[in-house]
């Protein structure tokens, strides 16, 4: 459930506010630079999509984003401002670091999705806590956010990993266990990939809904994306742990 309050508490402002009056020539509306005199502008606390002048959509064309990033980072580079006023130096520094954060977040498909969900007021941990409180109040069992068989799988594989770690410590690892874990690792990686594909399909729906969907539709797609990310989190950790154990000390 998205919390409608969450957004109002954030310091991010809406796209319309991304532009302002140039401090130097005083007339033009400007973004990173004044479009009239070209001076670097003080950074405005905008969200990362707005920073790049993008709508809050998820199918981002990464090559275009990259091009934009390099262009801006060249123009904003603090070295260019070593002879400028102190405040310009400061602004170019701040703009550069905002640029880097924005780029790093938006180019990564998962980070981008998580970021958008946060902008949309989705608070994962809050959701989990309030579900527990509800379960307590109603005497019911809390519904787990991922399917039970995924939890089983995670648990069982962790047990095997623990055993293998132990064996390695004793210097007597069992080849059949290693083989079994290796096989599961491949399966995990496939599933992990498949979830990214699923997420990309959700993006398309989301982007569509941004233009023409009802709030209800958008909420549904948000929930779907949260669900994919939750499942993917478990798999990501597992893949990481499996690699760690398989690579250690052998």
């Amino acid at each position, binding site marked *: 459930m998205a919390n409608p309050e969450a957004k109002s508490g954030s310091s991010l402002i809406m796209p319309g506010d991304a532009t302002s009056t140039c401090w130097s020539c005083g007339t033009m509306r400007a973004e990173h630079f004044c479009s009239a005199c070209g001076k670097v502008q003080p950074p405005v606390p905008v969200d990362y999509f707005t920073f790049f002048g993008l709508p809050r959509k998820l199918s981002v064309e990464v090559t275009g984003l990259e091009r934009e990033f390099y262009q801006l980072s060249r123009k904003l580079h603090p070295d260019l401002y070593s002879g400028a006023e102190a405040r310009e130096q400061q602004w170019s520094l701040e703009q550069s670091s905002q640029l880097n954060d924005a780029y790093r977040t938006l180019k990564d498909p998962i980070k981008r999705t998580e970021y958008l969900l946060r902008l949309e007021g989705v608070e994962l941990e809050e959701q989990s806590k309030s579900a527990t409180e509800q379960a307590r109040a109603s*005497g019911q069992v809390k519904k787990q956010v991922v399917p039970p068989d995924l*939890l089983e799988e995670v648990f069982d594989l962790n047990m095997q990993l623990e055993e293998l770690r132990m064996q390695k410590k004793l210097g007597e690892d069992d080849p059949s266990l290693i083989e079994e874990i290796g096989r599961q690792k491949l399966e995990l990686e496939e599933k992990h990939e498949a979830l990214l594909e699923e997420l990309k399909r959700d993006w398309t729906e989301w982007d569509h809904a941004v233009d023409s969907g009802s709030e209800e539709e958008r909420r549904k797609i948000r929930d779907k994306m949260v669900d994919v990310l939750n499942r993917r989190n*478990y798999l990501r950790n597992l893949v990481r742990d499996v690699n760690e154990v398989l690579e250690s000390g052998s």
Partner: protein
Amino acid sequence: MAYSDKVLDHYSNPRNVGSMDKNSQEVGTGLVGAPECGDVMKLQIKVNPQTQVIEDAKFKTFGCGSAIASSSLATEWVKGKTVEEALQIKNTEIVKELSLPPVKIHCSVLAEDAIRAAIHDWKKKNGSANANAPVPAGSQASH
């Protein structure tokens, strides 16, 4: 981040690690996870059918120190309680006992979820009469 002494104590010397036969009629098993971090926790209880007292509890957690400490503490707390008493345990009590910082609250939530899930499983095994847990007064929740 600094762990409290109590967390460290449970972490380096966890109580009741292990498992019980999940097919036994007297055993309830709860397996829960925290999607934020991908950690998983299994908690099992063994209930005396006559008295409804939880006579034994075991856990196994793959997760952070706070999750291990929370589940270790949870097994200690549920032992000797009746099922209905155990359902009253709140994550906030775990937070307090272990002095968990705000970022670790979800670890204690996991432990409460695990207790509930284990009890739910046990009730399911032992007849639906028990599975319809009494709804606390004031709550309109229907089953």
